């Protein structure tokens, strides 16, 4: 499953590179191009499942210096799991 997000950094977050280095340690996260001094950083999350995307998004939110994580794109097909329509979790009982 693939999603992309914009991570907004806090006003006084400290050196941007330190934050980016921490983010780059998260599995499946690819940081895009951004201008020097930018506080909104584009990223792609490529994960094997919807669960993993959620977990990565939560971890991004918890990173030092991160104010917000806004999702801007999501590819709904999850090729590692049954489709949503057939998932046992597709509806609550």
């Amino acid at each position, binding site marked *: 499953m*693939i*999603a*992309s*997000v*914009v991570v*907004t*950094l*806090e*006003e006084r977050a400290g050196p941007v590179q330190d934050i980016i280095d921490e983010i780059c340690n998260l599995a499946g996260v*690819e940081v*895009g*191009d*951004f*201008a020097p001094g*930018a*506080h*909104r*950083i*584009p*990223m*792609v999350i*490529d994960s094997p499942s*919807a*669960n993993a*995307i*959620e977990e990565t998004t939560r971890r991004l939110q918890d990173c030092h210096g991160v*104010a*917000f994580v*806004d*999702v*801007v*794109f*999501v*590819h*709904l*097909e999850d*090729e590692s799991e049954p*489709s*949503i*329509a*057939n*998932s*046992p*979790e*597709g*509806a*609550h009982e």
Partner: protein
Amino acid sequence: MNGDMTPADAIQRRQFIKATAMAAATAVAGGTVSPLPILADEPKKRIEWDKAPCRFCGTGCHVQVGVQGGKVVAVAGDRNAEVNKGLLCVKGYHVGSALYGKDRLTKPLLRDGDGYREISWDEAIKTIADRIEAAPERFAFYGSGQWTIPEGYAAQKFMKGGLSNNHIDPNARLCMASAVTGFLATYGVDEPAGCYDDLDACDVLIMWGNNPAEMHPVLFSRVVDRRSRGEKVTLIDISTRRTRTTEACQHYLEMKGHGDLAIANGIAHLLIKNGTYDRRFVDSFCSFKAPDDENPSLHGKAISFEEYKKQLEPYTPERVEELSGVPADQIRMLGDLFGNPALKITSLWCMGMNQHTRGTAINSMVHGIHLLSGHFGTPGNAPTSLTGQPSACGTVREVGTLSHALPGGRDVSDEKHRQQAEGFWNVPAGRINPTPGYHTVKMWESFCTPTSQGGNIGTIWVQVTNPGQTLPNLNKLFNPKGEDKAGLEDKFLIVSDVYPTATTRLADLILPSAMWVEKNGVVGNSERRTQQWFKLVDPPGDARDDCWQTIAVAHELFTRGVDGMKDRDGRFLFEVKDHDKPVPIWEWEHYYDVNVDEHLFEEYRQFSRLKHKDLAPYSEYVKARGLRWPVVERDGQWHETHFRFSEGSDPYVEAGKEIQFYHSSTHDDRAQIWFHPWIAPAEVPDDEYPLMLCTGRVLEHWHSGSMTRRIPELSRAMPGGYLEINADDAADYGLRNGDKVKVESRRGSLVIPVWIDGRGQPPRGSVFVPFFDETMLVNDLTLDAIDPFSKQPDYKKSAVRISKVS
């Protein structure tokens, strides 16, 4: 993986999707606006992208919908949309999955003993027509702010222009009716003067009982993002409990229920006492009003400035502190902010002020302090209500799917208004019934009362809403339908929906509906923005458009010779022609031979000009990401309006007027500044029921959860209902997280797990329960007391008691 794809293809495809995803994020992060990159080089199947507004709240974010193989496979925030500038909230980016829950309704189902049997659409339509034909005056239509504009318009015309029956009302009665009456009482016309641009310009944003961080997150992030860019914006949260909004605010003013009435009066008191009100603005553009206790009406009685001042005298900061619980110093802070003309102040509100037995009053009063202080009519200075549904404004308020209203802000009780509508509809004079129908609470009360006891609503058709979960006091207004000995055997409930719900549970006839991009649509968001989309995928099974369902029933009645389904010339009420030849749109296989939405919209558009809410031709909305009305044509172009009543922005303000309230209820271009006294809530805690229950929504689920609970990611994030309780109260009751409690009110009870402090850290003496979980129906407990003018119930203040369940 697609079966016809090689591993190499799959890798290549994944790279293309990633490239698209990164391009979308880069463009949003950089603030650039450009078309969404298409997966043009992708092997095999290509994703087709089109635009649509999000299906959920009233913010009106636009999404780009990616369709492949007849299925929605991707969603992206639309960077060309002014509302969301490419961003989506957690619900928005999962909106595509709402189509694909495994238990979509796909066949019409008729109750058969304790179960249901599948029937044909033909039998379903005839069954509804039988019920209506047998007793048209006992039929009611219950819809929502999720009706698209054409759907709501068709239902409205069917009822009022066809059946001469005004028993049509929406769930928006439970949601924003008090906002409507507040606008009408103040300006003589409904809907906000400002727009979301105010969020980009204000210096101070005050949220009155409002939690946009969870309910309208994209709007809230738009403001908070300004701060992250170094701009100074002061955020103030006035609320009965903390929320995620509170976390981002510099000031949190915790009030008691109905404390807002005292706070508004306290601000007005200080503005006058300190001489900081805007005398020029008030003298030029405002008058004063107070309730007329002898003859209560929405327009009250005129009072002088001196009388207004005198009424406010008791509302000193100290007295307001006693009434509201908000410290006097914080009341002074608010007074100082409103007294500072250099600041630009925007107020936002939603359910906290609307679901309130004095909802009309508090809405009017917040408008009043903006007018009194002159914080009105320039960018960043606006009192703005938000709506919770995608077309509460477009359909309910503008099309007027309310029991007293006609399209275009007209009333059934006004002869001239009826004549105008009869003219547009080409129906015989006198067709429209002059007596308002039943509002929501009265409609359901009548339905749940035996016919022998005066319960004169016999059949209700529900479309696009879930009253079995969302009505207040369900044990009075809904649940009796399912009781064996309630004496309601002759009552008949028809429900059109996409999934089984708490409402379909008691339905006699269930109709499977198409949703969102499975049909064409037009909606109107909270900032007067009208938005259009086209059908992109087919609905599952035999699911069909709600609008088609209405037209098919109308045509069945027409074939039976029911006069109401004929216009003055004897033609079908919903006749649509293509090249001068009628198209049988009541037959599903021909429904999309023409664009029925466009036809209905263009007919409805005539009404929009009656109260200066002009809409552009349908084709203009096809090109745009929505346009804010009034939309007027100048120099061959269609222009939207950012700020109503302001010269230079609103085309209907006369030159030299600066501000002109051209629908003033006093016919002098003035708005009304209201005094209303503080009054206690309809129910307050006592020895028997010592806790105040507030209900509401959560970030992960939209309203009753019938769509979002079927999205696995959202369901996992917030799986079930809970009772939030203050940690000290929990200790007093001997409760730990996860313990189950029985919650009881005078109307019902509920067993539910405890979450100590939860997200809201409710103050001592109060608890909170969200209403999204249909397995824990909190509205079994809530009060059905209503505002006297808007007829909207208060879901925020019900007295309850709790006991631990072993």
